[in-house]
């Protein structure tokens, strides 16, 4: 029997600030795992360093809290050695798009079959509110002495330019929607990326829950109450459904254009999805036919401490 939702929770004391958007994400993740019925010991959550990095301790599956910026590297290694594990990597926007941006780009190219979720709060939470790479140029959150000096990176655009085959965005206070997104992402065959808008009530007083809810816009227009809207409620079709260069380019460019929306209209949902590009695990199987049935982590290497690998043919070829 699949575990119940509560079984995915640990009894570790959660020390995020009251009202932190991170709670919604961890809840959505636990709900997604439960809904998919993934056995607790068949899943591994990898996390980076930051407030967000503590996530892995709150989920009762294998949980690996790695290093700042390196979460994707650990996670990919585990998945490549053990392709039948469900692997989810999570981390902050500083973690993934600042110090970890190089791995982000490379992971996109590699397309390992797993999911990466960025907790996008515009700040470096755990180090007390410095600007993260997603904070817009010139914005000054309350924790900054002067306005942000850097242009913001576009996580969706970056993911697409890097080759991610599933790119979506969620909102941490829309837990059900996020849960569904996570399920889609985990089920995607290839590397899926979710940029999750995550208010940090402690340090980011610009992109707050109210701001996302459009409270400041309400005066201007009585109609709209939220900046956020769902792509799936529009005609937007994210999927590359057959292998043609023109379809591919069309889907990529619509996603890139969509990713530029911000300010008063912020789309969430799936921006881009392409299962026609093979996952890295599949590419491995092209080279090593039995890779998926007999992956590194399952191979028998010894029998009673005697090595089983037979290199005699190689040695023969070296014999003079």
């Amino acid at each position: 029997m699949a575990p119940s939702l509560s079984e995915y929770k640990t009894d570790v004391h959660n020390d995020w600030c009251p009202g932190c958007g991170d709670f919604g994400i961890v809840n959505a993740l636990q709900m997604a795992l439960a809904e998919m019925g993934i056995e607790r010991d068949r899943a591994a959550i990898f996390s980076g360093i930051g407030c967000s990095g503590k996530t892995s301790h709150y989920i009762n599956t294998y949980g690996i809290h790695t290093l700042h910026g390196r979460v994707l590297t650990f996670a990919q290694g585990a998945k490549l050695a053990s392709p039948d594990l469900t692997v989810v990597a999570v981390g902050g926007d500083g973690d993934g798009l600042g110090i970890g941006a190089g791995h982000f780009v490379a992971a996109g190219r590699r397309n390992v079959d797993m999911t990466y979720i960025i907790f996008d709060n515009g700040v470096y939470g755990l180090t007390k509110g410095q600007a993260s790479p997603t904070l817009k140029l010139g914005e000054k959150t309350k924790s900054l002495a002067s306005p942000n000096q850097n242009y913001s990176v576009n996580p969706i655009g970056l993911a697409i330019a890097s080759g991610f085959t599933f790119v979506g965005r969620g909102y941490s206070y829309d837990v059900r929607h996020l849960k569904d997104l996570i399920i889609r992402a985990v089920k995607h065959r290839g590397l899926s990326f979710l940029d999750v808008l995550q208010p940090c009530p402690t340090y980011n007083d610009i992109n707050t829950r109210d701001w996302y809810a459009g409270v400041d816009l309400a005066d201007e227009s009585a109609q709209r109450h939220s900046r956020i809207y769902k792509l799936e409620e529009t005609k937007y079709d994210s999927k590359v459904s057959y292998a043609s260069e023109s379809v591919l380019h069309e889907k990529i460019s619509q996603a890139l254009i969509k990713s530029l929306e911000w300010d008063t209209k912020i789309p969430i949902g799936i921006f881009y999805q392409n299962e026609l590009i093979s996952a890295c695990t599949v590419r491995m199987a092209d080279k090593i036919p039995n890779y998926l049935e007999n992956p590194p982590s399952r191979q028998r290497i010894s029998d009673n401490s005697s090595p089983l690998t037979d290199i005699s043919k190689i040695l023969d070829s070296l014999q003079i």
Partner: protein
Amino acid sequence: MMTDFTWLIGGPQGSGVESGANIFSRVCAAAGYNIFGKREFYSNIKGEHSYFTVRVSEKEIHSNVNDVTLMTSFDAETIFRHFDEVSAGGGIIYDSGLEQTETVKVRTLDKPFLDRLHRRLESLDCPFTVTGALNAARNNGVTLYPVSFKSLLEGMAAESGNERLRNMIRMYNVIGVSLSLGLVGMPAHPLYKSIGAIFAKKPQVAQTNEHAARYAYSHARQLGEFAHNLPGIAQRPDTILVQGHYGTSLGKMVAGCRFQSYYPITPASDESTYLESHEILEVRNDRPGSTAVIQTEDEISAIGMMIGAALTGTRSSTSTSGPGFALMTEALGWAGINEVPIVITLYQRSGPSTGLPTRHGQDDLLFAVFAGHGDFAKIVYASGDIEESFYDTGRCFNYADKYQIPVIHMMDKFLSSSVVTCKRFDPSRISIDRGLLLEEIKGEYKRFAATPNGISPRSRLGLAGGIFWNTGDESDEYGHITEDPYMRIQMMDKRMSRLDLVLDEIPESEQAVSFGVSKYTMISWGSAKGPILDAQTMLKENGIDVGFVQVKLLHPFPAELIGRLLAGADTLIDIEANHSGQLGKLLLQNTGRKPDYYILKYTGRAMTCTELYDSVYNIIHGTAKHREVLTRGA
């Protein structure tokens, strides 16, 4: 007297020096000789000078000597750079078309060398041309064998009616080899066989080369006499000819390493390339196995992926060199605090920084020992030669698993660019000990449970019932973050205690090897072993007994054992390929004993046994400096 013959081939990078040397080595090995070959090359793809020295002997040999017996050269640079190394009685086969070439016309001769060359030629009253250099050699008792390589090609073309041969200067290497083998009287058949083997995948190329070989080999007869010959001796069974990275590569396969992540870097990446080209493995009584070899975006990713893979219970490793290792030190500490067994094969080259990226050095020892912030346990282990490195690789994985600890396996560029004969590797001498790696779990599981010896049974990602957490933060027994001061002490003590365990449990014979201890005793580590062993033999042949202790386990340092081994040594000579005498520092730090003399080399070229012999000789005769600096090698 026993045969002890050194052959040198040189040429611009990309001109086939390496395959030429390969053929020569195979032929000599097949003829029953011991081979010690070494390649020197620039950090360059095409055009800079590269050369190979192959020492051939009936005796066991472990290094190069200063002198060259026979040199073969098809470019001017090789002559300018090496004419002075050929000893009296030796010979130089060269392309007679080069005779007029002036030193300054060879653009790849760098200024410092050119200045030295000119001073040297001037002092010998020789003109600054190939002829000048050759005359200098002749005056020194070297026999010159001019050959018009161009005419040879033309002759071949005429003979076979294949006009394309006329311009195949690509075959100059094979011609040089064949002339050499003919001159020394080596039987021809193994030559053709070797060519066939080396070009096995390109039959057309093999055929043309064999043709050239036959033609040149028979031409050699016209060259006249040569004082040395290599007629071949009895073939030796169970001998293999191996390149530097075969030891660790094959060791990894046998040890059951199934995951290797790496980022390209000289001289480490050959190993990964080799592993990948043999990624599918035969497994006894089972379906094929495989090594997942992953080229990463950088070395930070390489170590991260390796750790991720190791957490699944897969034996995992990476291979890198100094700059890459520097980038791994943060994650190394993560593996340390999380007790993850990983093996880093560290092929050292000359630092600091990019340094001499294709040259030799043993200068990462102290960095490896103290790498990573904070106190955590690791093992640093060094192999002294290629054969050793095969078995040591097996040990390193066992250490990693048994002590749940990162292991740094020290190799270097001298080893990696050597080509040697040795006893066929015996996989059955490698045993696999995975330590407390669990196959199933009953009851509550705590990854970092307190145990009497500080080692906790280890689960792996995906194992039923074995859920654990890891964190780079200090953690409790489950692996959850703690900041409690007492838990902290418990965990620090638990992790650090394994350093004592390592020293207690690893057999002494794996920690250090004594090759005899005398009044004067040499101490060293890693690849300096080869030249030292040969120098030791030479000293003995001259009636001088000098001891030698090779330290293999560098961290934790076997202070008690080394102290004991060195008890009979009055005068300690520390021999290393670095500037600061790093082993000497480690020795002093751990035993309170300081080397009396240092023989150091940091030109990026490996030591020869000859120069080592000279320095040790001088030490014993009181004519040496406290710190001898070796300089041999172009």
